[in-house]
Structures are given as structure tokens and as C-alpha cells.
């Protein structure tokens, strides 16, 4: 057992941590609102290798492990990075796992910076694809249709709704003709590829939510250690300190579990999918609760836009719900442990 990142991983954390400290300050996060996209941060992330590392060497990448990506994701969450990091990483990893020229061409274009692919976590409904993550800034969206995987170019017909987490989401109208005419990436292995991509996404988002939760706890603690009421620091009141202790504990657990899930991708593949869903469900609740408690500790100031904690509160909800609720993830854990509902 060894819970310490390797020296190389510590260097990775330092390098990305330094980038986020410079290019994803609270001020920059605010400036990127409401769209939630900072082109300068994104180009610097890509320059540092955020996309290349996600892809194996055979496809022109660096072949980093999912654990390496998860450690970067924690920094991304801590800094609320306004950039489509996970969407692009997940799409590129999916494309690298997909045979055929269409996938290879799109991946090469993505690594060259010419295209920006994303993935829709939801199947198209009658109105189209709802709330596609990074859909407002991406050039292509990969969509699962039962066993098939298709890719749709994103155009001017998308709409970009304002949303609680200031994420670059898009509603994309699709009709049967457009779906039928779309480029097919995979004919029969689509469900499998999509599930694996979703597992990556759950793990990376879990890492980000764990980092976000830890940072929110720190913001709450710092405020409670300074602010005085009734002649003492409010952090000395158990009504305040105990709630912070609970969310600090959950945040620590969320970080451990996100890292274990990422580690399992290579080291214990039999538990990969189960742990991915576990990590997401737990980190989502940890971030939800940590941001709520840290905001509440600020009293009326927490309700003011001027204080940064609201930035965390809103993204904890946005980054979670764009994928799935903690309850849905808990049921996904059951699917992985006991087989899909209705199977036995």
C-alpha cells in the first residue's frame, strides 16, 4: 500500500497546480462567466499536454494513466477551471479506443488543435441533445445510439442556455435525417465504448469534485477562524466546527476514493466500473455538502456574489448534475455489482 503519488506525479501536480494558480484565479473564473470558457486557460492547458497525456502513444499521445489525469482533475476542481478539460480528454480517449479512419482523423485533428470533440452523456430525445457538456465551445459531439456511436458536427443551430454552474453547455437540435446521415464511428461496439468513456468521465469528475470540496472546506475554515461573533471566533462554536469537521472528513474520503478508482483503471480492471460510479456518487455529495456548509458559515456574506464561495457552490451542482445524480450513480454501482436491473 502506498498512498503517496510518485515523484513524477508530484511534478505533474506541481506543474498543473502552478498553471491553475496563474491562469484560473477567482477573478479569471468570474471573467469567464456566464459562458464558463477561458480560451487562454484552455490553450495553456493544451500546451502543457492536458490533451496529449490523455491519449496513448500509438495515437500520438503521451500515454498517461487515468490516475495521472485524476490528479490533474483535482487541481482543475480546486481552481474551478473554466475549460472543457474532461470533455475533451474523455472524447479523445474514446476516439483512441475506436477503430477506423473516422475516429483516427477526428482524434488527430483534436490533438492538432483543429477540432474540439465532446461526448453527449445523454441519448437524443425528441427535441435533440440536451445540455451537451462543452457543447457551446466544441466542434463535434460524439453520440451513442444504442450499439452505434456517431459523431455530429456542431453548428450555429445550437443554443447556449445560461445555467447554474456557468458551464459552456449547449442544446443541440437533431432530427432523424441528421442522425441517419451522421458519420458512424462504431457500428456494434458503441455501447461498450460509451460506457468505458462514461467511467473515465465519472472518475475525472469525481477527482475534480473532491478537489473542489477540499478547497471549499479550506475557504470555510479560513473564514470561521477569522470571523468573530459573540466575542469569539465563530470556528470555536461546535455548531460551526462540527459541520466543517464532517465535510472535511467526507472530502478526504472522496479524494481517496477518486484516486482508488483511477488507480483501478490499470491495476484492478475488474473493479473499474464499480469504483468509478462509487467515486462519482460520493464525491458529488461531498462537494455538494462541503460547498453548502462553507457558504453557510459565511452567514450573509456567503449569499453575496462578491464572496468566492458561491462560485464553488454553483459548480458543485453543475458539474455533478450535467452527468448524473449521486443516487443514479449509486444505482450504477448496483448495476456493476449485481448486473443490470432486470437481469437476474
Amino acid at each position, binding site marked *: *500500500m502506498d498512498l503517496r503519488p510518485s515523484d513524477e506525479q508530484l511534478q505533474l501536480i506541481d506543474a498543473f497546480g502552478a498553471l491553475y494558480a496563474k491562469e484560473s484565479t477567482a477573478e479569471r473564473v468570474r471573467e469567464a462567466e456566464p459562458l464558463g470558457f477561458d480560451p487562454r486557460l484552455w490553450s495553456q492547458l493544451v500546451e502543457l499536454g492536458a490533451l496529449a497525456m490523455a491519449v496513448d502513444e500509438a495515437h500520438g499521445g503521451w500515454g498517461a494513466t487515468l490516475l495521472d489525469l485524476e490528479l490533474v482533475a483535482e487541481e482543475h476542481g480546486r481552481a474551478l477551471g473554466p475549460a472543457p478539460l474532461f470533455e475533451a480528454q474523455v472524447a479523445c480517449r474514446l476516439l483512441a479506443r475506436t477503430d477506423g479512419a473516422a475516429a483516427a482523423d477526428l482524434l488527430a485533428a483534436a490533438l492538432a488543435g483543429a477540432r474540439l470533440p465532446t461526448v453527449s452523456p445523454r441519448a437524443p430525445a425528441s427535441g435533440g441533445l440536451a445540455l451537451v457538456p462543452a457543447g457551446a465551445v466544441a466542434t463535434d459531439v460524439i453520440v451513442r445510439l444504442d450499439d452505434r456511436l456517431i459523431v455530429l458536427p456542431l453548428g450555429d443551430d445550437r443554443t447556449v442556455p445560461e445555467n447554474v454552474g456557468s458551464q459552456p453547455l449547449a442544446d443541440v437540435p437533431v432530427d432523424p435525417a441528421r442522425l441517419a446521415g451522421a458519420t458512424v464511428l462504431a457500428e456494434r461496439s458503441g455501447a461498450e465504448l460509451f460506457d468505458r468513456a462514461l467511467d473515465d468521465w465519472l472518475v475525472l469528475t469525481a477527482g475534480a469534485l473532491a478537489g473542489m470540496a477540499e478547497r471549499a472546506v479550506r475557504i470555510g475554515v479560513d473564514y470561521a477562524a477569522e470571523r468573530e461573533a459573540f466575542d469569539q471566533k465563530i470556528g470555536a462554536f461546535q455548531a460551526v466546527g462540527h459541520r466543517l469537521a*464532517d465535510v472535511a472528513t467526507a472530502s478526504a*474520503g472522496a479524494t481517496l476514493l477518486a484516486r482508488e478508482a483511477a488507480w483501478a483503471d490499470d491495476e484492478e480492471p475488474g473493479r473499474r466500473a464499480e469504483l468509478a460510479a462509487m467515486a462519482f456518487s460520493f464525491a458529488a455529495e461531498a462537494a455538494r455538502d462541503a460547498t453548502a456548509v462553507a457558504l453557510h458559515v459565511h452567514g450573509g456574506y456567503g449569499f453575496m456574489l462578491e464572496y468566492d464561495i458561491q462560485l464553488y457552490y454553483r459548480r458543485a451542482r453543475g458539474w455533478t448534475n450535467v452527468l448524473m445524480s449521486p443516487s443514479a450513480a449509486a444505482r450504477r454501482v448496483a448495476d456493476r455489482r449485481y448486473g443490470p436491473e432486470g437481469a437476474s
Partner: protein
Amino acid sequence: MDFRLGESSEARRAEVREFLDAHMSLALEEQVYRTGVSHDGDFTRALVEQGWMAPSWPVEFGGQGLDPEEMVAVGEELRLADAPMYGIGTTMMVATVIRAVGTDEQKAEIIPKALAGEIVIVLGFSEPEAGSDVAAATTRAVPDGDEWVINGQKMFTTNAQIGDYVFLLARTNTEVAKHKGLTMFLVPLHQPGVEIQAVFTLSGERTNIVYYNDVRVADAWRIGDVDGGWHAMTVALTNEHAAGFAAAIDRLLRAAETWARTTTDDDGVPRLQDGTVREALGRTAIDLEVSRLLQRRVAWMAATDQAIVAEGPMSKLFSSEALSTRAQDMAEVVGPDALRSYFDPTAPAHGVVEHMLRFSLGTTIYAGTSEIHRNMIAQRGLGLPRNR
């Protein structure tokens, strides 16, 4: 990073499982529950024969030299089986303190007998007016020649009725701050003036109130310095604070899974197919994973000589609170059949869910309540100011 406990830990786990297959039975589990006594002569003798009374101790002191990660695997298996280990646990906890701060005479007298399973040592810390605030103890020890005379009352002295010695926290100085006027003694229980009164608890465990009326103990049985008892207590409680209840959550989950697989609804569909059941099982499995990770982190830190600050309290707090929450959830999900008692022949999965509902209540109270652990996390871990 590596989240595996390691090959040697898994080898120890396999050994313990083999041992439990031979020496642990449903009948013994029921005996522990019906009597409320988590101690058994035959089981203890079998453990002694294996040399497993103090597996973490160095070999030259009669242990097996197991590292903290190996101990995690051993502990997980013993607790999962609900093996009768409580009396051994308190005995060896005190033996560990004596090894650390005892005199040569104390070591020679106590340690061989403890390792041989010949004595049971119980804990006399809590009092009617001193539970979480254990340093507020008022049981008095007054010097009389080369002896001390003890008067007072202790609460929750589990196994006192089968114990040979009590590791007693007593006040020896009322003129100083409360932490600084305490002394620890190893008091023989088989003597006049010791009165033991049974107390029965919600989990089925029998514990005791013990009254001390002019009980005498030789100064040679003082453990540590006069007024230095808090240090000896700290040595003892450090072990407790590394505790966790992952194995109990595992017991709950396994019982609930057995129930869900073997029980059908009115239409003959297995309950495992019900979305509500699946979510409850999924959430229990998640809390088990987190409890394990928090507990194993403490072991890893101990194995690598890192200072454990809030990590121990986080393990105990999270796992005990999660056990309580999930036991309640599961009882509601199982429905009316969850009312059937532990070891009632009509109960699903031996009624483990029903038992966990009651058992979990104690876990958030003993060995430091959740509130005590939250204080430690807030102050030591987060650096918040002390509460007044």
C-alpha cells in the same frame, strides 16, 4: 500509488479465514450474542496456540511482528466474523501499555499470562459523571504506606465479571488541573470491596458498573508515574482512535445482499431487482469502500511513521456514522421482516440487519463520541480555535 494491502497482508487474511473456519461457528456467534460476552475460553486457547494474541508485537516479545497493513487484514476478518475478541482486545491493549511504560516486575507478571490467554484485563475509565470528559474522573486513590486505597464507581467496565484485573483511572491529586491529577493502577478484581453490577445494553452486550469500597492495591501495581496517568491513558486511547467499523458495514452489506437475493416480492421478483433496494445496497457499498480507505490510510501512515493527526478520528467518525445511517436505511428497505430479531429462526439472514440497527448506536458513542472526534478533527486537523 498502490491501494492493495499487499501480498503478505492477503496471506495473513487467508490464514485468519482458515482459522475462523475451524474455530468460529454460527453457534459461537449466537452464544456471544445470547450471553452478551465477547470472550470464549476455547476460542482464546485456539488463538493462543496459533500465537495470535499479539500479532503486531515483535517476535522476541511473543508476537508475530505483523506490520500495520497486515494487522488491517487480520482485524477486518476477525471483526467481519464477529469473533469473540473483546476481552482479548482490552487485555492486550493494557499489556501494550505495560510493555511501553510498566516496570520490569509488572512486565514479568502480566505479559506472559496475557499472551497465554490466562488473564482477562478490563478497562475502568468512564464514570457516572465522566464519560467523554474522562479526565473528570473522581474515583479516588489515597496512599497508605506502600499501598493505595481506592473508593469510587466506574461505568461500562465490560467483562468485569470474568476479569482478573481492571486498568483503573483514579484521581490522586485534586489540587491541580484535572488532566494532571490522575494515576493508572492495575487493580486485582478478585478482592473484597469490589462489587460488580451487570448492565445490559441495546446491542446485547453485557457490561457492568463496578463499585470500589476501600479496595487496596500495592504501589507496585501503579502503571506509570503518580499523577502521570493521562500519559498512560493516551498510550491506550491512541489504539482506540485508530479504530474503524468497515467490517461491521461489510457484515450489514452481506446480510442485506443475502436477503435481497433470496427474498421475492408478491409477484415473485427478487427484491434485488427493486430500484430502492439497489440504491440502498449501492450506497452501503460506497460507504464501506470509503470506511476501508480511511481506516487503511491510518494503517499506512503508521507503517510509514507519519504523524497521525485527524486521520484516526476521521476513520472512527465516518465509519460509525455511516454504519448507523446505512443500518437504518437497510431496515427500512427490508421492511417488516427487518423487525425479526437477531438469531430468531424466522429472521432473514440471521437478523443481522436488525442487530446492526442496535449495534451501530454504540459505535458512535464508545471510544470517544462522534462529537469528541469532530472536536479533534476541527481543532487538530483544520486548525480551528478550541471551543469553550
